[in-house]
Structures are given as structure tokens and as C-alpha cells.
């Protein structure tokens, strides 16, 4: 089934897709990043200090104004909490914000694609999924529900007992994918609804730790410590980002998992966006809708890299260690690194960050303990 959908897409792309999709949607001078605006990456220091260190200038306001308006049109953080937009369309209308009629050939291809996905691939998968679902409840968590093509790399680095496995998070599918290649003890947010039901049934088969995001405190840490001490148990699987991110970047790793000690086994998971969108936008779609979307995609193709185990060094603090692990995962998976907290999906940013920006500006503008005035050239 996986091979079939893979092959079908290849056929489309080679006979119709490449010529039509690429020539009509991708102009020669377009940029790789499919965004709304072109952002300039100059920092505050380059923009303001480059002109005149140590003085205040009326034009400084313009720097902040422009950055502010850029953020309104498009910002780096909220972009990660919705599906990635592809530069080259993969014939799924759900990942294209700019859908408009291009040519009749493309429309024909798209309609054919719809028929295949909804009438051929989906019913076949439902039948498979039901029987797999029954198996999953009864047996280990390593049964594949959605037809996915998973490539594991560096299997010699697979997590062993008693270690902590950390990975970047895109959806609960990550758990399933990793579970096909090993048994893990899960630490995660307790959900209600359909996903909660799955979680409850998983609890029957092995020991997992479920908690509520808003109550994550020391007790949690203690539980993990006990688990680590018992080497006979399964390795723990944790997603330090704390929420689903859309697989284009790795956001801040919460330091909790990195304070416990023990060996950390980083794993990088990267989905191929051309075949299907694996990101679960929990604020927009329920679990059932998400599964339906998965089943009506082309396929789920992903690469999983097991990275060499890492240990916290003597003088290193948990935050620094977390950032080190995050950088390794992002580099392997080809994703960018963001220092922002994934929790910003649900809550506001702290005041202290604004104060940092103000302090930074002051440092540029103050020289020798006083502020000059740079308005007269």
C-alpha cells in the first residue's frame, strides 16, 4: 500500500507534475521560503549602532516601527503553529493558502488525485487501521496504523533501557513511529476524547506517565528519577518542546528532562512534506479530523535518525545542555533552531523579554555613561 501510493505520486510528478506544477507555480526568481514578506535579518546592533554608537537619533524609532509591522504581517513564532506551506504544490489543497486556477491540465491532475486519495487509498487504510487498532490495544505499541514509509538511520544508537529518549515533536504520530522500532515508556500530556481513550488503553500494556501541562512541577521530576534508577524498565520517551510544532524548526527544549541526569538519546524526526502533512494543529483539528486527514494524504514518509547518546558535563547547567541537544537534533533533521518557547502557542510572552530588548537598546545608545545626540550630522 505504501509502495503503491509512493509510485502513483511519482507517476504524476513525472508525467504531469514536474512540467506543470513547476513551470506555472515556481518562477525562476522566487525565493525558497514561502512566506508573505521578505524579512531582513539585521540585528538591532547592526541597524542602529552601525550608524552611530553612543547617541540617540530620531530615526531609531523607524527600526522598531518597521520590525513591529513586519511581526504583524508575519512572525517566526506563530508560523510554526500552523501547517508548513510548500513552495512547490503537492496537490493537497489543505496545504496551499493561495489556491487559484492555473491551467486545466493541473485541475485534471488535482481532481484525479482527489479521487484516488478519497476513494482508493482511504477505504483501504480504514480496513487496515481497524485491524491494526485491535492489535495495538492487545499487543505492543509498535504497530503501524497509517501507511508510512519510515527510514531509520543509525540504528546502532537506539536508546537502551534506563535512558531518556528526546525528540522533536510534530504530532502523536511520532510516538507510533518510534514505537515500531522499540518499546518506550511515555511521558506526555493527558488528553480527553479519542486520544485519551488510546492513552488509557496504552496504560494497560506498560507503565506510562501522564500529566497535565499546567501542573508540571517537582513531583514529575521525582517520578522520572525513580524510573531511571530502575534499569530494568523501558527507556522514557519525552518531547521537551512540550507541544506540537510543524516540523520546520525546533523550539525551546524545556530543561526538566535534562536535569535528572542519566544518558540522553537524541532522535531527530523529519517528515517529508511532499507526501502529506503530519503536523497536528490541536487548536484547529480534533484527533479524529487529524487521522482522517492523514488517511487521505498520499503517504507519510519520514526519516528517523538515532543520534549518539549525550551526557551532561560537570560544569554544564541544564539549560545549556538542553540547547546543545537541541542543536544536534536540528542539524541532523535539517530544521532551524528557535529560542522561542513552544508554550507561546497557548500563553503570552513574558514581560521580561521586552525588558531585555529595552536594555539592549540602551547599551547601544549609552556610551561612557551618557547619551549623545546624533541628530546633527
Amino acid at each position: 500500500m505504501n509502495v503503491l501510493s509512493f509510485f502513483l505520486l511519482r507517476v504524476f510528478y513525472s508525467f504531469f507534475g514536474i512540467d506543470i506544477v513547476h513551470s506555472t507555480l515556481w518562477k525562476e526568481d522566487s525565493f525558497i521560503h514561502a512566506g508573505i514578506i521578505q524579512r531582513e535579518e539585521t540585528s538591532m546592533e547592526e541597524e542602529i549602532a552601525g550608524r552611530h554608537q553612543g547617541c540617540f537619533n530620531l530615526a531609531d524609532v523607524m527600526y522598531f516601527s518597521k520590525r513591529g509591522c513586519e511581526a504583524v504581517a508575519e512572525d517566526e513564532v506563530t508560523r510554526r503553529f500552523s501547517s508548513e506551506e510548500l513552495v512547490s504544490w503537492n496537490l493537497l489543497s489543505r496545504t496551499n493558502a493561495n489556491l487559484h486556477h492555473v491551467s486545466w491540465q493541473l485541475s485534471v491532475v488535482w481532481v484525479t488525485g482527489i479521487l484516488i486519495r478519497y476513494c482508493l487509498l482511504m477505504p483501504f487504510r480504514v480496513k487496515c487501521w481497524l485491524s491494526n487498532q485491535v492489535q495495538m490495544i492487545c499487543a505492543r505499541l509498535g504497530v503501524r496504523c497509517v501507511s508510512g514509509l519510515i527510514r531509520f538511520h543509525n540504528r546502532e544508537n537506539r536508546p537502551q533501557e534506563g535512558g531518556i529518549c528526546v525528540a522533536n515533536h510534530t504530532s502523536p504520530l511520532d510516538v507510533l513511529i518510534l514505537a515500531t522500532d522499540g518499546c518506550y515508556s511515555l511521558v506526555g500530556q493527558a488528553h480527553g476524547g479519542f486520544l485519551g481513550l488510546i492513552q488509557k488503553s496504552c496504560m494497560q500494556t506498560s507503565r506510562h506517565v501522564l500529566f497535565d501541562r499546567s501542573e508540571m512541577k517537582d513531583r514529575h521530576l521525582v517520578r522520572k528519577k525513580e524510573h531511571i534508577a530502575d534499569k530494568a524498565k523501558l527507556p522514557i520517551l519525552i518531547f521537551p518542546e512540550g507541544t506540537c510544532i510543524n516540523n520546520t524548526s525546533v523550539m525551546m527544549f524545556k530543561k526538566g528532562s535534562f536535569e535528572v541526569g542519566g544518558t540522553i538519546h537524541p532522535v531527530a524526526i523529519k517528515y517529508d512534506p511532499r507526501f502529506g502533512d503530519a503536523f497536528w494543529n490541536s487548536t484547529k483539528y480534533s484527533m479524529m479530523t487529524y487521522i482522517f486527514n492523514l488517511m487521505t494524504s498520499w503517504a507519510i514518509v519520514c526519516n528517523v535518525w538515532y543520534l549518539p547518546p549525550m551526557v551532561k558535563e560537570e560544569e554544564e547547567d541544564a539549560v545549556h545542555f538542553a540547547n546543545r541537544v537541541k542543536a544536534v537534533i536540528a542539524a541532523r533533521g535539517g530544521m532551524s533552531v528557535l529560542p522561542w518557547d513552544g508554550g507561546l502557542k497557548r500563553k503570552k510572552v513574558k514581560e521580561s523579554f521586552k525588558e531585555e530588548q529595552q536594555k539592549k537598546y540602551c547599551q547601544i545608545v549609552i556610551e561612557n555613561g551618557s547619551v549623545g545626540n546624533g541628530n546633527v550630522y
Partner: protein
Amino acid sequence: MLICVSSFFFSSVSHSQITRLYSRFTSLDKGENGTLSREDFQRIPELAINPLGDRIINAFFPEGEDQVNFRGFMRTLAHFRPIEDNEKSKDQNGPEPLNSRSNKLHCKKCEPSYRSNYFSFFVLRMMVGVNISDEQLGSIADRTIQEADQDGDSAISFAEFVKVLEKVDVEQKMSIRFLH
């Protein structure tokens, strides 16, 4: 229909740009009532940490109102469109485009800030936070006004403001390039 009205209003903004901005507008509009409130803007982290964030947000809202619709949203963002070469040779007698240099300077963010000492001080305070004392800040504000003031009325008129910034490349500094 909204898209048609908007594209008539902003004749040189492309259809796809409006569509993308509309989808950005709806993703910010958590209440799904077709307008944005101040809380919706404050949810953008990069704007929330900008020292002038609150003033920028205010620029989107018409006088005394708490909601901004898509037209108002686009209008404010349109101030930041760069000036294209082919637009310069357009009808000289026609109405001045939104993104002209003069309109960029007129933009609410800049205009009332430097009219008097009080506003100057207020905006400066936003930019530096608590890291500079009141006296120091007051003296910077005074000096700024003094240097720019030419007719001796202790306030900066719009013409004086423009003069101070004549060597600054406003078009480039206050331009955001929209893709597609």
C-alpha cells in the same frame, strides 16, 4: 467580495498578496468575528517584546475604536510597501499613494511623538525602559527638540521633522517587501 473591494482600493497590490494577508488576518482573529482587537495583536510574541509595540498596535486602530477590520489592517500595512520605480512616473495629479515618503513620515507612529517634550519623553521612555534615569531622559528629549526646532516655538512641526530626517533613507528604512 471583501477581496474585490480591497483590490480596488489598493490597485497595485496583487491578488495573491491580499489573499495571503487575509489568511494572516483570520489566523490572528481568534474570536472569529471579522475584526482584530488589541489582545489579538499582543499575542504575536515578536511584537509583544518590541519596546514600541503598544504604539504600533495603536496605529492600526482608528481614533477611539477598539476593533480594526481587514481594510484598516491592510491600510496600515500598505504604508510600508516599498516605492516601485514604475509608480514614480504615474499620474502626477492623481492622489498621493499611501506608501509615499511623506505618508510614511506622517504615519501615526512618528508624527505626534516629537511635537512636544512630553510625547518625546514618553516615547523615549518606552524604548529604553527603566535603564535610564528621568533626568537623563528629560535632557535627551530637550536636546532633541532644541536641535530640530527652527522657528523657536519649542515644538517640532511636521516640516521641521522632515528636515531633520532629510538625510535618512526613509523609503528603505520604512519598507517591507511583500512577496508574490
